[in-house]
């Protein structure tokens, strides 16, 4: 036993390149991230920012032939990049497991939910089928599925969206994984159902002391579940810090922009939303410097030459920006955003 607790997840300089197309696509471009035991980190970003790719890398779900992965990933001491064959499949579902965005697509349509959960349990535990079924039923009760006994024998398409996602959560937790990965688990759900699932995840997380990496594009969702938020843009984490720091005093111009473009509250007549101009860069054709520079009002020459290093802007709060001095509050209106 060492004094310092080992992080549950430790990612060092992860790079993921998809080589299947005409040009290699740099989906993840040097990500460092660690999650402590019992901690929830939200990976926040828009489509194409590399957040889901990062998440799937942890289970090595990308097709090996068309993907180049570099860097180091450790989950509770296990070197994930070195796992092969049976060791890799042992790790998946047990070391780390995953909740998908669309349970309708992520569950096999021709097997019942019970069969799919029992299959996962039997894969990792040496117990009888009836024991596994009891365990599955127990998980159905814990994710608060009404009449769980009956629901175990239904097919995915026979359930409503919220119930399917609960079943997906039961499946992911069935083998007591050390790390839970969630890929936009509430995006496909209605607002009234989304809250229920978020609360369920938070309760289970507290109860079981889960460590969780939660990918989302919705800041509100991230605020609701996370201890820390990591903001991704064009394959890099541009800002990371506690929820309070990132939401109340964002220091990267992209985070600032993202927070202010959200319509909230009513609109006074004639008001327009602040926007980030332009659109995200082409991942097959990234500029040499900061990928956000071409949309950034604060961009200087230095931004376009080399990718900025992470700057410590507070305790545990970092931003990959050379102009963090300018983004510090209380400078009135948030900078880096054109109205």
């Amino acid at each position: 036993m060492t004094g310092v607790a080992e992080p549950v997840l430790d990612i060092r300089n992860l790079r993921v390149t998809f080589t299947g197309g005409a040009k290699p696509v740099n989906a993840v471009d040097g990500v460092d991230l660690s999650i402590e035991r019992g901690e929830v980190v939200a990976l926040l970003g828009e489509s194409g920012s590399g957040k889901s790719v990062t998440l799937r890398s942890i289970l090595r779900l990308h097709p090996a032939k068309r993907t180049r992965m570099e860097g180091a990933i450790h989950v509770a001491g296990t070197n994930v990049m070195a796992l092969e064959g049976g060791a890799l499949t042992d790790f998946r579902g047990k070391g780390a497991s995953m909740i998908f965005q669309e349970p309708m697509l992520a569950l096999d349509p021709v097997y019942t939910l019970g069969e799919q959960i029992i299959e996962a349990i039997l894969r990792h535990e040496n117990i009888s089928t009836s024991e596994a079924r009891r365990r599955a039923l127990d998980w159905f009760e814990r994710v608060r599925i009404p009449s769980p006994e009956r629901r175990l024998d239904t097919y995915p398409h026979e359930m409503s969206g919220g119930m399917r996602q609960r079943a997906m959560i039961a499946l992911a937790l069935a083998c007591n994984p050390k790390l839970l990965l969630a890929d936009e688990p509430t995006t496909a759900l209605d607002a009234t159902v989304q809250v229920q699932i978020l609360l369920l995840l938070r309760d289970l997380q507290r109860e079981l002391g889960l460590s969780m990496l939660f990918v989302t594009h919705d800041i509100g969702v991230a605020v609701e579940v996370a201890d820390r938020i990591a903001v991704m843009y064009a394959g890099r984490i541009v800002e990371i810090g506690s929820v309070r720091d990132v939401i109340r005093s964002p220091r990267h111009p992209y985070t600032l922009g993202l927070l202010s473009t959200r319509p909230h509250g009513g609109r006074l007549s004639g008001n327009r939303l602040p926007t980030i101009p332009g659109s995200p860069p082409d991942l097959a054709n990234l500029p040499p410097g900061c990928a956000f520079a071409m949309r950034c009002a604060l961009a200087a020459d230095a931004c376009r030459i080399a990718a900025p290093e992470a700057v410590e802007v507070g305790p545990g709060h970092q931003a990959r920006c050379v102009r963090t001095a300018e983004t510090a509050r209380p400078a009135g209106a948030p900078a880096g955003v054109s109205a």
Partner: protein
Amino acid sequence: MFTYAAKRVLMTMPIMIGVSLVCFALVHLAPGDPLISVLPPDASQAIKDQLMVLYGFDRPYYEQFLRWLVRAVQGDLGTSIRTGRPVAAEIFKAVGNTLMIATLATFIGFVLGTFFGFVAGYFRGSWLDKLASAAAVFGVSVPHYWLGMILVIVFAVQLGWLPPTGAGPGGSEDWRWNWVHVQHLILPAVTMSVIPMGIIARTVRALVAEILSQEFIAGLRAKGLPELGVFRHVVKNVAPTSLAVMGIQLGYLLGGSILIETVFAWPGTGLLLNDAIFQRDLPLLQGTILVLALFFVALNLVVDVFQSALDPRIQRA
């Protein structure tokens, strides 16, 4: 489930009636005198008229059709002009013979086809895919009657391993399940199997590739299933459609056996059809086509109901 089957049966009724109508009309498309094959060229008009009345050819078409239909429903397909025997009995015997090679051919085709299909779908883009796909393209491209001839040349004429034609000693009248007879099955069945092999291989390849690209495959891997476990799921997803294709292929072989049976002189429905056409034996022609088409319709129905029972996604209300 039962409602679904009942609904399907009901939906099939108009098709069956349409099929009967087509079978009936088909024969009346035929130019020339329907009695040409039984009458001597110098037959008197009186005899001609007498026979016309006997076979019912003198009545209006709709009446002929209705009479024919009513009798067909009762299992009476008329009398063969050429042999004078009941058409139903002739067809019954021939259907049995055709069913024998068609079933064997479908089985061989299904086994090989699913194998090639899975290999090609799993290793899409690799040389294994190219090889398996080549086998599939061969299956759907080769003129099977020609392939039959080639096989006869190689295995019967050159190597002398298998008999070239026929159904063995005593023909189909004296069929036994022994090697002397069974070896007559091999060449026709293998020849016939290339078409279902090709079609099933192509279908399975496309299905496997499509299923492997779905998100739930990532879901299965994420929960730690090894490739063999994932494969089991792929099989269960592919099964309903590929079994349905197999069933329909059996129907195609039954109806399309004429070319193979001609090459191998196999005494099945195809040979019967061939005789009926060239001897202008209209009742026999009509009856054979009707039985084969209705068989195909019924088979489609069974396949459909079976598929819906197998696939939980299909609404069975």
